[in-house]
């Protein structure tokens, strides 16, 4: 279905691999960086919206609305007033979500590009080889799947002599970085409506990503770690108060 993205992704990934001394781990990291650069406008918009939503929680006018229209019977009025305030402050309530939807095909394409490039069975290799348009493709196949202590084609485990089982280092890093990333995007003091969504995201997303990293190839886990670290770095670099934080509600006149 997404072949029109997956095939070029695979070719670019392998091309980068050929430029980096046939190091597939580095190729994944560099390619992820390139994808993040291309999708920077979407990521920036998403972060801006997420920050605005976070800062809105401490906005006095927002708090006033919450207090004035609390209770189940005022839900519709509350929603109307919230929408008015969003418009007033230039915030899109979907701003943190829609960029994710737009980026979903890229995430899936990246997953398939890494998976295909690490072809481990005959039919996988056949499919991978077919999709390559590089003139020196035959010289590159199969890709060198070893990077640091990992075989990128296999689920990652670090084996130490004194331990009977391997440590899923990348899965743990994915869990921690995914949690940090979702935590950054969640408002500090979410409203009742947002609380359930935020808590679910903070719990479900990191666990899902860590589970995928645990059972699938280390190459995919490396991609998740790279993209998470870049997201966190982007967040801290671009952190600046938004309009929601700057809005000041006039103080109530003192009663004599």
């Amino acid at each position: 279905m997404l072949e029109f993205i997956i095939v070029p992704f695979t070719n670019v990934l392998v091309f980068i691999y050929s430029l980096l001394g046939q190091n597939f781990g580095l190729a994944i990291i560099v390619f992820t960086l390139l994808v993040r650069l291309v999708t920077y406008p979407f990521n920036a918009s998403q972060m801006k919206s997420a920050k605005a939503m976070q800062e809105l929680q401490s906005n006095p006018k927002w708090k006033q609305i919450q207090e004035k229209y609390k209770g189940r019977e005022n839900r519709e009025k509350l929603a109307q007033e919230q929408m008015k305030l969003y418009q007033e402050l230039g915030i899109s309530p979907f701003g943190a979500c829609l960029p994710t939807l737009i980026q979903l095909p890229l995430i899936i394409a990246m997953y398939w590009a890494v998976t295909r490039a690490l072809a481990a069975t005959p039919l996988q290799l056949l499919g991978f080889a077919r999709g390559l348009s590089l003139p020196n493709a035959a010289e590159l196949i199969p890709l060198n799947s070893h990077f640091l202590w990992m075989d990128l084609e296999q689920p990652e485990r670090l084996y130490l002599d004194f331990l009977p089982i391997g440590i899923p280092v990348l899965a743990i890093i994915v869990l921690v970085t995914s949690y940090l990333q979702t935590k950054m995007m969640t408002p500090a003091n979410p409203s009742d409506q947002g609380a359930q969504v935020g808590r679910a995201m903070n719990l479900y997303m990191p666990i899902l990503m860590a589970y995928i990293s645990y059972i699938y190839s280390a190459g995919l886990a490396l991609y998740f770690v790279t993209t998470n670290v870049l997201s966190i770095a982007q967040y801290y670099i671009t952190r600046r108060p938004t309009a929601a934080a700057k809005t000041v509600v006039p103080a109530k006149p003192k009663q004599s």
Partner: protein
Amino acid sequence: MTIKRLTTFFPLIFLSLVFSACGSAVDAASWPGFTVDEENGTVYVAFNQAIYALQLENGAQRWRFPAENQANFTTFAPPELTGDDQLLISGYDQTLYSLNPANGNSNWTFAGATNRYIGSPSAAGGTIYAPNSDNRLYALNPNGELLWTFAAKQPLWSQPILVAETLVISSMDHNVYGVDPASGEKIWTLDTGGAIVSSPTLGEDEVVFVGTLKQQVLAINSASGRSEWSYDAPGWVWGSPTYIDGQVLAADLEGTVFALDAATGRELWSVDTEGAITGAPLVYNNHIYVLNESGQVISFTLDGTIQWTKNVEAALYGSPIAAGELILIGVGTSDALVLALDENGDTVWTFAPASQ
């Protein structure tokens, strides 16, 4: 559910579905592999989660291993029947199995490898040679005990062959190796420039032939490792070449079948078919048979003239195999795992395993 919740959860649900639907080790990783024991009238078929022993005359199932599907057991490589009556099975679960070919009972297992067995083991001179995707060739005694290992630089997918005093192994690391079969010491290395998926083929005078993904067929002196000649094919050569009477037959992923002079590599003829060919051409009763990805079984005369084409409603990979008066085709669909044809292409019997 509010729109905001929907747009928040939708990516999670979608990603869960995408990733959970992907990458299963069991689904169609390869195609069926066959071994025929004509003396006992049995054909052994390896596909996905089982090995089936079938009666050659009618395709009736004698036994299967394991008796029921097990999540970790997957195999596709042609089983190897040894001289001391063992049936060797290459497992995707990193295990090499030895079974009793009469009833499928397990003799022993070897679990010392760290990756899938893609290719078949070979047995020669009382030693079992098992190539693995962990880049190693494992040499075992007939009881499955490790004797030595040989390490290449990339996975080993092809079955090694013993030529006089040299074990010849072709590797995905672009090299063909000549190895001492007793010790595993490397004797020679030939860099072919392209990955080699399938096994070398023995010709005359200890010359072996290999096909590479660099679109070449090479003739290699197995004693010295020197390349005698190379031929540039139209496409990637996935399957093993076939040697017959001074000719080398091969096919490529462009669907071209070609015949070469075994002594010089000069092309004698070539024919284009409509689909990629991953297997070795079969020579049987003075005819050549190939399978292609377009679902065609094609019969040629020895000079390359097409005799007949049979269309099967499935992509066909691998090689046909001759068994008595039959030609066996691995299909690998739910309707048919194996087709047995006569030399005119008519179906004699079909085997489809019972669903589990």
